[in-house]
């Protein structure tokens, strides 16, 4: 899947997981796509929901089959 920017939050713990991803998406323009690599478990549970609460659009959650996932989010202002 195509994306404009990516950020890796696998080395972060809550709430810095979402905070780091949020800082990254704020750098994008409306309509651009951010790819966020995250660990299974708590980040997969919470990060997509937090993006949704901020009004962004979740496109896809891809299982990397190595214990990590990549979330694709489209920025909505």
């Amino acid at each position: 899947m195509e994306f404009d920017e990516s950020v890796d939050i696998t080395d972060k713990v809550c709430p810095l997981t979402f905070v780091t991803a949020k800082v990254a998406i704020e750098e994008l323009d409306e309509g651009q796509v951010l790819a966020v690599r995250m660990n299974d478990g708590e980040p997969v549970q919470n990060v997509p929901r937090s993006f949704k609460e901020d009004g962004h659009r979740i496109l896809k959650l891809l299982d990397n089959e190595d214990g990590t996932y990549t979330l694709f989010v489209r920025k909505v202002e």
Partner: protein
Amino acid sequence: MAMTDEQIERYSRHIILKEVGAKGQKKLLNAKVLIIGAGGLGAPAAMYLAAAGVGTIGIADADEVDLSNLQRQIIHATSDIGKAKVKSAKETMNAMNPDVNVKTYHCFVDSTNIRELIREYDFILDGTDNFPAKFLINDACVMEKKAFCHAGIIRFKGQLMTYVPNEGPCYRCVFKNPPPKDAVPTCKQAGVIGAMGGVIGSLMAMEAIKYILGVGKLLTGYLLTYDAIEQEFRKVKLPKDNSSCKVCGKNPTITQLIDYEQEVCEETAGRFEVKIENY
């Protein structure tokens, strides 16, 4: 300018808020707030603004830390007694957050220096303890078109209001002129409960932060009063028509700053404080 990982972590509880985000935190980091008075009100306000990452904080006070200050001026410690309040304040703020550029002004603010002083700041907090200073700050902010937050505390009571140019009444619209001498209690009679500075000073910091972020409603056109005995807040709507105000009205008669005679305590060299307010 991108934030460092350390900044992202430090301000994470701000950034996570929808109303703040990285954008809002950067506004705070680029903002300049001046606090006049490093006392009961200025101390908590300065600490919260420093912790919040307000990038430049000016702090003006001519006094030195005195033992009797420490019951409420939580930015100063016992070991600071005798030290300039602005120096003690800066040390506490920078220990908490080295991101913040604290500019100190160890002087009395008067008609000769205030306009130049406030000019470089985005928002001003009036944490002073006497009427001449309060009218001076108000008039200077009106003349320089600066937003500011007024506050005052005495005994178990506190109050605050915010002036934004062209958006509502100024302090003089409401209170007209300093009260006659001896009409209000001085430091010798009055006293103040220490936590009052924390309540009202924190509300001042909140006004500054919201003004910088451009979020929510400010206390423009309102006077918020707090009575700790009754444990009661009142938000008093102020009259809208301020066209006849002597400083911010249509035809101002006050076009130059006035140094009203300072209420003086027996010993002004920091031994006692002048503690008078609008009650």
